[in-house]
């Protein structure tokens, strides 16, 4: 991905490793673009109270369905307009970024811990452990994610915690698959055998010999799963079985805008574009990180 934007290997031979890395990172347009957009969205989420004086929950009967700035009949106080309950759309969008980012980060953390533990154990110990983990991965892949997530959220009630836990317990498969194969590749290399020979404990070998050498793969999967979780949360909330109103989740905003699809299509355009940009930025960053940390695995 983005193969052409990274400098070729020939041009960076003869530089120090640090300079080579910097050259690769800053020369990678996809990575730079993704990083820039992501920083912008994170900043907007953190500084939301400074960027807008409106409360995302405050309703106003007199200010309903005001269009955004590029349309007629707009209200200068509400740049992106207001929704069907008169809530400021910009404020909801900014506070909604917090929900998406939180879901993405925490879900990736939960699923990362589960998947990495399973994958590293399977890759390092092999044998029966590997068989058991491979079986679990097969079972997980066979479960229809959206269906199971919807059913469980419906039964436990849609709160932020439930959505994060459900997605965390459903999205660990890619971590396990990738960690398993990357640990398998290095578990019999000389330096690992050397650590074994001088009598290091298994914990020590795993933590200080194995983990540092697979952590770049871990980070790449983490970004991609963050994007996956953000999209899934939006889909669940859109179907009415994720984060519940009146929270300003982007998926929920699109679902509310759907009711006005005929006359006010901008109501789905704004949160939809925001969602698209966020996921695009995270994906570009993940792909870029893979190109930069493992240039040999490009393609």
């Amino acid at each position, binding site marked *: *991905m*983005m*193969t*052409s934007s990274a400098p070729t290997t020939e041009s960076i031979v003869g530089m120090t490793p640090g300079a080579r890395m910097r050259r690769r990172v800053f020369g990678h347009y996809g990575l730079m673009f993704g990083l820039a957009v992501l920083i912008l969205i994170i900043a907007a989420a953190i500084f939301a109270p400074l960027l807008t004086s409106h409360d995302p929950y405050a309703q106003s009967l007199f200010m309903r369905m005001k269009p955004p700035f590029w349309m007629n009949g707009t209200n200068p106080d509400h740049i992106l307009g207001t929704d069907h309950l008169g809530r400021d759309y910009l404020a909801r969008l900014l506070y909604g970024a917090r929900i998406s980012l939180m879901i993405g980060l925490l879900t990736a953390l939960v699923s990362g811990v589960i998947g990495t533990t399973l994958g590293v154990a399977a890759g390092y110990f092999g044998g029966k452990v590997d068989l058991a983990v491979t*079986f679990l991965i*097969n*079972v997980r*892949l*066979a*479960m*229809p*994610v*959206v*269906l*199971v997530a*919807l*059913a*469980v959220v*419906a*039964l*436990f009630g849609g709160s932020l915690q439930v959505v994060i836990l459900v997605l965390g317990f459903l999205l660990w498969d890619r971590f396990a698959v990738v960690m398993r194969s990357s640990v398998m590749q290095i578990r019999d290399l000389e330096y690992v055998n050397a650590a074994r020979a001088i009598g290091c404990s298994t914990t020590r070998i795993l933590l200080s010999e194995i983990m540092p050498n697979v952590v770049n793969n871990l980070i790449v999967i983490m970004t991609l799963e963050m*994007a996956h979780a953000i*999209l899934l949360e*939006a*889909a669940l909330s*859109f*179907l*009415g*079985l994720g984060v519940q109103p009146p929270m300003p989740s982007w*998926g929920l905003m*699109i679902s509310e805008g*759907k009711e006005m*699809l*005929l006359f006010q*299509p901008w109501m*789905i*355009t704004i949160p*939809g574009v925001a*969602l*698209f940009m966020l*996921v*695009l930025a995270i*994906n*570009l960053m993940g*792909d870029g990180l893979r190109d930069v940390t493992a240039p040999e695995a490009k*393609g």
Partner: protein
Amino acid sequence: MLAFTLKRLGLAVLVTLTVSVISFSLLHLSGNPAAALAGENATPADLEAITRQYGFDRPLPVQYADWLWNALHGDFGQSYYFKLPVSSLIADRLSVTMTLGVCAICFALFTAVPLGVAAAVRPNSIIDRTALFLSVAGQAMPSFWFGLVLIVLFSIKMRLLPPSGSASWQHFIMPTIVLGYYAMPAIMRLTRAGMMEVLNADYIRTAHAKGAGAGRVLFKHALRNAIVPVVSLAAVQMGFMLGGSIVVEAIFALHGAGYLAWESISRHDLPTVQALILIFSCFYIVFTFLSDLANAWLDPRIRVG
């Protein structure tokens, strides 16, 4: 080959059973099914009667064994909401979902494979860039939002296609595009990577050298070899897509099994949800099983390993 097939078959059955145990316990441990069934105005006596009638007072393993035994005989119980046998309910709806799934995977293959081939033949050309952009955008596009955008464009602005329902073939066009676009990026990337690798192989140079035409080399020699992993990926994607069709069916009010799942979940109709989870899992398991077999048949190295 027989030993390999039996081993895979055993694994597939084991995975199916485990999925059914997990989904059964998830659905039955989280809350009281009798309360959901009785509604809000039920008296304790009603609850008691329903609990006894449906056998919710029995130990969970017994209830599971009972359910499994009946499920093996094609009886998934009665739907709480429709008061009909779940099996006939799902059988009615499944054809819509299957049609959508087949159309979507065909759409994905017929757009992604040519794009992937063109991108591999001319790396870094405009076509390659466009294909890359389409696949990056496809992975970031929320499918429910993409569906709504299509409705705004083609149903509301241009008035070309019906926005919802499943009465005619026109109703399937937009859902096919939305669901197919979801599977496109992976297929395109794999086709491109496979073709790039094959095009550098010695036998392609030989084919060129002995004077075979460019088109003949590309399709008869190269694509034939590059397409094998794509076909098995498409089978797996098909399994995923049937499970993911719930979102697409909900947007376009396409009354298939996915729509039924969404309705049943909202209504706490446990027997229907339970059966649907099992059926969608089975689709995935069957498709991956078939693709494993096809791969092993084409590549003997897999059988041994």
